[in-house]
């Protein structure tokens, strides 16, 4: 059975074309994506024939209970993990056909990542962490103006020479955000980016991500548990048992909480 958006919920029906498996305005999309872990009786289907697209300049939240497959969806979409069957496209490129080398180049040029536990390189300064994806490309130069703009907006301009161990959690995550933004990627994948932050810090971070979408035209896909975080998004999709079970456009915190309650 194909779980294609929009099906159950009806909210934002008018956008169903844009969220389909056709290239259209989508910067990333999954087509018939299935991911199974293990074999035989022990096999677990983490993604079950999912087809979905992520549109340019859209801030999407992927929500669902633990083990629903939302992280797997993100990992497969970004090429960090391989699908058992189906296709994952970034632009027109099917990431499942890429070699490790090509995937590396794809990650450094077209994708950005933000993780719950930051994953900064301890040996590098904040600045070196941020410019890492550009520096990895021997031919590329850092866009200094853009770097300054990013670090100013993120409020970390004066911490550029510090090592990660000398930064607070919020500062570390903002360095991670800047690192994800610097190559001007087609899409940023954020995996519970506010999971390790307090509510004030996470509010600031979400506000910044929102701004990145609105002002810089960034596309962001964010996996989250947090209804408040999801309420900053243009669109929320719900995943359960590896399937898409709902979608909402510009939902309020209450809408989201209601939907979660309904799912559980």
């Amino acid at each position: 059975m194909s779980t294609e958006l929009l099906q159950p919920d009806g909210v934002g029906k008018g956008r169903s074309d844009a969220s389909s498996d056709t290239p259209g305005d989508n910067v990333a999309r999954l087509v018939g994506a299935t991911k199974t872990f293990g074999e035989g009786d022990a096999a677990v289907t983490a993604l079950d024939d999912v087809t979905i697209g992520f549109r340019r300049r859209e801030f999407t939240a992927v929500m669902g209970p633990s083990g629903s497959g939302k992280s797997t969806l993100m990992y497969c979409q970004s090429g960090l993990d391989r699908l058992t069957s189906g296709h994952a496209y970034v632009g027109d490129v099917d990431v499942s056909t890429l070699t490790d080398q090509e995937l590396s180049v794809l990650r450094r040029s077209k994708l950005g990542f933000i993780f719950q536990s930051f994953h900064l390189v301890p040996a590098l300064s904040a600045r070196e962490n941020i410019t890492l994806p550009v520096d990895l490309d021997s031919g590329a130069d850092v866009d200094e103006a853009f770097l300054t703009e990013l670090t100013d907006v993120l409020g970390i301009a004066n911490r550029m020479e510090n090592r990660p161990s000398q930064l607070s959690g919020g500062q570390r995550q903002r360095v991670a955000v800047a690192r994800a933004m610097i190559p001007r990627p087609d899409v940023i994948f954020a995996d519970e980016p506010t999971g390790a932050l307090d509510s004030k810090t996470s509010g600031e971070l979400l506000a910044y991500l929102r701004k990145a979408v609105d002002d810089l035209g960034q596309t962001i896909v964010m996996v989250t548990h947090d209804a408040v975080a999801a309420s900053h998004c243009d669109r929320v999709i719900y995943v359960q048992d590896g399937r898409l079970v709902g979608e909402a456009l510009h939902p309020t915190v209450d809408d989201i909480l209601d939907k979660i309650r309904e799912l559980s």
Partner: protein
Amino acid sequence: MIRRTFKLAWFKRNRYSLTVIAIGLSVAFIVSTLLLTTSIADVGEPLNEAYDGVDVVVRGPEVAAGDGPVAGITAPVPPTVVDALTAEGYEAVGFTSPYAQVLDPAGNPGGQDQTSSNVAEPWLGDSALNGFEIISGTAPAGLGEVAVDASTADNAGLEVGSTLRYVTDAGLQEAELVGIATFGGADNDPYTSTLLIDAGDPVFTPTRGFDYVLVAGDGEAVGTEEAAALAPGTEVLSGPAWVADQIDLLDQFLGFFSTFLTVFAVIAVVVGMVIVTNTFTVSLAQRTEELALLRLVGTTRRQLMAQVVLEAVFLGAAGTLIGVLVGLAGVNGMGWFLDLLGLTIERSNAISSTAIIIGVIVGMGVTVVAAVWPAWKATAVAPIEALRSAELEPPSASRKRLIAAAIALAIGVGCLGYGMIQGDILFTGIGIGGAFLALYLGADTLIRLAAVAVRPLLGRAGPTGIVASRNLERNAGRTSAAASALMIGISLIAFFTLMAATIGQFVAGDSADALSADYVVQGIGNQPEPALGDETLAALAAVDRVTDVVPLYSTSVTPLGEAEIERVGPGDAALGTAITDFDALTGVYEFTVNAGSLDDVTGTAVVIDQALADSFTLAIGDPLEVNTLAGEVELAVAAIVETSLPGAPQPAVIGDLDLGDALGYSEPATAAYIAGDADEAALTAAVGLPTIDVLTLDDYVDGLSSNLDTILALVYALLAVAVIIALVGIANTVSLAISERVGEIAAIRAAGASSRQIFWSLISEFGLLALVGVVSGLVLAWVSATAFFQALSDGQITYPETDVVTGLLIVLAGFLGGAAASWFPALVAAKADILDVLRAD
């Protein structure tokens, strides 16, 4: 707790596998070495059984000291002594052990090898003095029948009933091989290939009396006093005392090998210990959080210590088990390697339980001791560390360590300077030790400096290069031990290479350059025997286009007086002495005369080399009193030359042919220099004996250092083990460091680094680590060798023979070795799934 600790250790078995291998290698090396040493030591045992019927031994007083299976030169025992003993009703047999080289069926010298003597002994039948027993065939029953020892028969492929050819001083001989004998229950007399011939054979006709006389009573044992009364002017020992003396001589010769092997075993243990310490330091540092958590929930420091030490016990046990098993197999490998080098070390087959027990104690002990200090440091962790994700170690060098390194360096340099100027070996040794300690303690600082120095270079490879250099700098405190382990191995290899190259150059260099003979004819294997008889010399002289044949007669004399001679190389108290046709010699050898005149050399007026003149402060015309086969003789210094004739050792005294008479020397020549562009094949044909080589000048000069090369090959092989253990240590450090950094590697990978970039980053980091170890090892070796020569060679050698190209090759090899050791762990890390790491959070 034992079960829980075992489970924890088992859980981390991958992390500890290389440590176990390192311990295992060290233990294996110790066990092999000890087994070999003890089995070598047992080789003298058959002498006890072979000579248990000997009551008394008569021998002449010693006139020149000597090492090894070839005992020191003793004055001959006159045949009249044998007659007197026999007249008294005793059984007395005089031995001269004449040269006899058995040939194999193909006509090549067979039997044993370079290290054994090739002798003929009379077959004594049922006599109590007969140490041999026929085990196959029959005993020689008259002229034309011979037997050989079982080992010789085996090595040369000889069969009872065949015709045996052999070479004596009288030339090529032929006889029927009728029997194969054992000696005292063993296959052969230790380090001797024996041909048993009828006692009436002319080969036993004494030219100058007997080397020793074995005596047995008729039914009743002979006392030493009774025998001494019949043998005036000789030394009389009881049979057991003489056997003990012979075994002692063997031990002296083998002691060199035993010491040699033990030294390497100790090196292997030290390297192993450094690596175990390193493993525990790194792995415990990684577990700071875990240890702190255990403290947080109420574990006492003592409990933590006990847990860590118990872990070490498990590792030690696993490593030791592997080590003992490999060691038992390895002893045969070592024996095989020695055989390959032509250094056949005879050994018994007994497995010494002591060797295994020592191996077990060392393996377990070293591991536990090596774990204690890291455990003590790691368990000092404050419980609060569990709640903090602090950096594992501050990036700055430990000040205490740096100060200690500086102190060690100051002491080392001071002692080295003093030792070199004063020629004091003790201070030189302490100085080398100090320098070594300084490098060991300062290794982390050196690594940090190296990391900073190469950063611009690595930076060109992009951020992965920067990460490599920063990590090297940051983790230097923990990884330096791996570099130190490599430093130990490399410094020893380089030290021995420098020593050998320098001594080799010293031995072969100037003196060989002065030789202009076209050929050198000498016994195979660079031994004084077999000799060149007068007929052989005449045959050589008769070869077309030979213009001159200069025979060399080699003997040695012992100087009398207080001075002790110090010469580089094996010289002992005896002075190598060459007797030759001196006028002819000056035609093929150009002496650099420092004093006196070569024209004055005749009779007891001799040439001495500068080293001897310096040692004894001798000037022209001075007397040199020596003990010789003919008793005490006073030589006179006619000339002092810069360097003597080539050889190892070089003869310190050279005299004209008539010196032989004065010294009581009447053996055939041991070598001859040939002048003239004769055909090599014609010379070989003239010699007509497979036991004598005709060498071109170049081959001869190359061969001069061949003994040294053999020893060096052995040293290399043994040190290679230490280096391999050190490289296992590097691999270990790399995999531990990488397991600590999976998060970081995943982050860089997620940011778009390819696995290739990660791989090269890790390789350059750990190649650099190895490089620091190799370079410091080379520097240490060069300083040590220089200091050593300055202190010991009396200014004859100021700097070691330094070959820059070889040095650079070693540096390159060290870097590549380090890179190779980190290859696999780096490959695994670079190929690791990013997600595995991200999911682990």
